[in-house]
């Protein structure tokens, strides 16, 4: 029975540990997009986000021999992703990328936006772009832990227990952290509330 048959992530890691390289491909196929999305929202550009994502998966691969299924695989994976991203941001590797990325979403616009229908006007596109830049700046300005909590909660849709484990805080501390983060965002994004792009 190959790893393509539905298996839990932890089982796939155990198969990888046993030497089944295909199990790694299945895990990468499943988590490639979520990890890249998470890292992209931290570093703001696709190329460095993908470089970091490769580093994350390489760490998973390197750790295969010592892997023990003591936590959910996705929790472990996002903890690695968080550490890789924070290390890169702290040591300055990504500072330039972030500075370069301010108001530079054009390169990563979804297909639907790159091919606007006949009703879309240049002005609307500009407004949408401004809104995205404002959202990104507001999230970016949050303290590090709040920012990570919002990214994992809003964009990865993880449950509280899992986010708390990734961030190594209690579940009740996480709920308060999220509340404070969204309160800050409420103040910063007030001009955008109730006004659709």
């Amino acid at each position, binding site marked *: 029975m190959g790893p393509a048959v539905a298996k839990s992530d932890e089982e796939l890691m155990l198969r990888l540990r046993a030497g089944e390289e295909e199990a790694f491909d299945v895990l990468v196929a499943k988590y*490639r997009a979520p990890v890249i999305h998470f890292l992209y929202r931290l570093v703001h550009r*696709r190329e460095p986000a*993908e470089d970091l994502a490769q580093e994350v998966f390489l760490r998973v691969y390197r*750790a295969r021999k010592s892997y023990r299924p003591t936590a959910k695989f996705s929790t472990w994976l996002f903890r690695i992703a968080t*550490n890789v991203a924070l290390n890169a941001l702290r040591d300055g590797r990504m500072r330039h990328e972030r500075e370069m990325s301010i108001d530079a979403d054009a390169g990563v616009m979804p297909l639907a936006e790159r091919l606007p229908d006949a009703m879309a006007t240049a002005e609307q596109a500009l407004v949408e772009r401004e809104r995205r830049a404002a959202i990104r700046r507001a999230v970016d300005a949050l303290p590090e832990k709040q920012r990570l909590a919002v990214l994992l909660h809003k964009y990865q849709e993880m449950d509280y227990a899992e986010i708390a484990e990734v961030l190594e805080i209690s579940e009740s501390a996480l*709920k308060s952290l999220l*509340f404070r983060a*969204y309160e800050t965002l409420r103040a910063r994004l007030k001009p*955008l509330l109730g006004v659709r*792009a």
Partner: protein
Amino acid sequence: MSEHLKEEVIIPFLDGRLSAAERAPLQAHLAACAACRAQVDELRAVVGVLGEWPAVAPSPDFDAALRARVSEETPHFVSLYHDLPLIERMALSWRAASWRSITAHALAWAIVISMGFWGWWANSPAPAPPPVPAPPAVAVAPQPRPTPSPVQPEMNGSDELAVLDNPEVLDNFKLLSEFGILFEVEEDKEEGKTL
């Protein structure tokens, strides 16, 4: 009016993750408190606005690039290992041993003592040459005693601790005495970096 909403329940309330029993008193409060209602409505709107920040699609060559890096792993590490100086290769090998701390210290001391003995032996005065018949007495001006080299301190053969004045021996002593501790520091670093 019931008390205002506690901060740790507001986000679970918005996420719909409260039980019916937990939700009922909150809804009753919101019906009566315009301030809390406005706050919750705005927070709900914030969560919606955040959804306007789009994600990016992974590059089509992401998997191939990752696979290439993974396939480089083993030879990469083997070549890195062989490029390391002997002392670092020894350190890597020793990491795997649970008894490394005790043995490393024993080895370090054995090396230091051996080097000390070697230093003492190498600097011992050579055996006296056989006596030569005395030349005819000639008046010779007294010569100044040569200044000992700063690198090789003068040894009189009786003071073994003097070998520790040798900077080379001292450097090795410092290095070797920290040998075991270095492993633990390295290991801690690695554990911290793994995750």
